[in-house]
């Protein structure tokens, strides 16, 4: 998986001034979600950090978030990253999966709450997030295909866009800066217009709602220059190991003491899991309504960094130390799932590093692993 190049159906130019018209024409048939700059105050910049530089990064980012939009005007398409990834449109943070009705506290009826969503467009998705979504596809199809996920996924149309990387971005270093996989349409910002690459019929249908112009040599050159500027070089160059070697490195370095130094810094808050585009573990709980007659079985995003994650009812904790929980998350990205899928489950979006209150990040951990294994 992961190497298939998609066939280009059409290349064209879309003037930016046509975006409002495009959205107007699409909105009757589709829900549209895109990046919106949310915060006008610092509270949205999440938890304070021990590191001033990290605080500054968050302030600069100012909480972009994928939100439902009714007009193209409020989009912030020139963005670095969103706080939460697009997984929320496929596995919502809270999702009622089964409804039950009780009579005298005994089951009366049971209903499967299968999602029934309108076709929707995610407008302005970066390469890392697209790669993250492809990895979720793998996990939710594998073994037992999950209809809750798939019934949303099949209704989705993904319009990609080139990005503005910062020093936390390292998609290129983990092989995730890919523009021709998964997208229905990909837009490259070339100033007054977007260069448009169409990969699917669905993509062609939505983007052809407005008049597109032909590409010429200049626009193709502009596109190439823009994509070059979007390379996540700053962070990617910091990432020392060759990602192909990560499973092997993590096996060789499993017992090294640097893991404990990372574990000691971790607060087990679980933020890294919440903001990760490929973390999908969940908890399930029954939620009763106040009438004590009906309720729902609800799933929630969960975190393998929380102390209780692997505790059984009898009290035994199968991953009691923070070091081991940190390692587990790292191995999920660079070993366990990578060995199955062929590519890392870390897509280099940099979110966990940007948001971590202890400034633990994948670049540093990967480098520590690499350097310490080299020393063996």
């Amino acid at each position: 998986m992961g190497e298939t190049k998609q066939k280009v159906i059409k290349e064209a130019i879309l003037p930016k001034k046509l975006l409002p018209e495009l959205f107007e024409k699409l909105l009757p048939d589709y829900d549209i979600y895109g990046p919106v700059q949310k915060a006008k105050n610092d509270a949205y910049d999440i938890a304070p950090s021990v590191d001033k530089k990290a605080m500054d990064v968050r302030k600069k980012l100012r909480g972009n978030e994928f939100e439902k939009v009714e007009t193209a005007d409020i989009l912030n398409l020139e963005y670095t990253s969103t706080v939460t990834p697009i997984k929320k449109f496929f596995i919502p943070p809270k999702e009622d999966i089964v409804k039950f009705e009780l009579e005298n506290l005994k089951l009366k009826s049971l209903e499967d709450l299968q999602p029934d969503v309108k076709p929707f467009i995610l407008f302005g998705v970066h390469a890392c997030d697209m790669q993250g979504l492809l990895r979720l596809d793998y996990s939710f199809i594998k073994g037992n295909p999950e209809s809750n996920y798939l019934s949303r996924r099949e209704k989705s149309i993904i319009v990609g866009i080139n990005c503005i990387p910062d020093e936390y971005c390292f998609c290129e270093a983990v092989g995730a800066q890919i523009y021709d996989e998964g997208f229905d349409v990909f837009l490259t910002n070339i100033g007054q217009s977007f260069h448009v690459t169409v990969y699917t019929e669905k993509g062609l249908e939505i983007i052809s709602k407005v008049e597109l112009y032909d590409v010429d040599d200049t626009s193709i050159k502009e596109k190439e220059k823009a994509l070059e500027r979007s390379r996540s070089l700053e962070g990617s160059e910091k990432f020392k190991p060759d990602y192909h070697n990560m499973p092997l490195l993590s096996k060789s370095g499993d017992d090294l003491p640097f893991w404990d130094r990372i574990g000691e810094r971790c607060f087990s808050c679980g933020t890294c899991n919440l903001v990760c585009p490929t973390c999908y573990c969940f908890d399930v709980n029954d939620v009763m309504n106040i009438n004590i007659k009906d309720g729902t079985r609800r799933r929630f995003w969960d975190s393998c960094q929380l102390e209780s994650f692997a505790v059984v009812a009898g009290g035994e904790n199968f991953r009691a130390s923070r070091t081991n929980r940190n390692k587990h998350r790292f191995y999920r990205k660079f070993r366990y799932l990578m060995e199955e899928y062929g590519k890392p489950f870390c897509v280099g979006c940099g979110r966990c590093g940007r948001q971590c209150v202890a400034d633990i990040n994948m670049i540093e951990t990967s480098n520590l692993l690499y350097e310490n294994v080299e020393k063996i």
Partner: protein
Amino acid sequence: MAITEMQYEKKSLYLPMKARIKKAVQMTELEKFFEIELEDREQFNYDPGQFVMVSVFGYGEAPISISSNPTKKDGFELCVRKVGKVTEALHRLKEGDPVGIRGPYGKGFNVKELRGKDLLFIGGGIGLVPLRSLIKYSIENKKDFGRIIILYGAKSPKELLFTDELKEWEAESGVDLKVTVDRGDESWKGNVGVITTLIPPLDLDIENTMALIVGPPVMYKFVLLSLFAKKFPEENIILSLERKMKCGVGKCGHCQMNHIYVCQDGPVFYYKDIKDLPESLH
């Protein structure tokens, strides 16, 4: 394949089947026995060692090992320790009360691979519950197996499970049964000591014996050491592991043991397949 061309069943993996408690018997202070019958499905096929997700609506869902003989087709049996929110709620239920069932899930004991072998069952505490499914099956199909030896340990005589059946297995089925308790009481005349004390005196045809071990996490290490002291081959050891589970279908992530989802590849494992995993036994 494009995601839009996927064929999949548009039905939740997490929707329980409606079921009813046919019989409920308090066994010990903490353990209760349940016979469950599904409402809409007459047959329920499962392997010994598999588990179901049991729902008490309003409280939640918990993974519980099936305890009955898989040849029992009109329902199945569970023996549940009251230890968490869902199991406490389950204990309050009576005959006729509704529950939800999903499953059966996981990989159980591979009966075909056990044929012709001597079977050494080692159950600690509630570990007897999943073993009982295979014990009953092997007694019923005794000609397919060699000797059947059962070692069973509990903390005290009051906590012994299925005591009537234990007597029956020993008296009528030619099972070699050895029971021990950590602490006896005035009426107890049997063995006193942890379960590993039963292992050294055993006379085993070790090459042709399969050991089937289920117990609390702490038990495995000491039982394994005792078996290895007898030069018991590690490839003849099978065990069943407990983990937290929220889905049973390989998604929620709670049961992971390194790269393995216990709900998919287990809970029953060959010891040789998991012994090198740091998160398997400790």
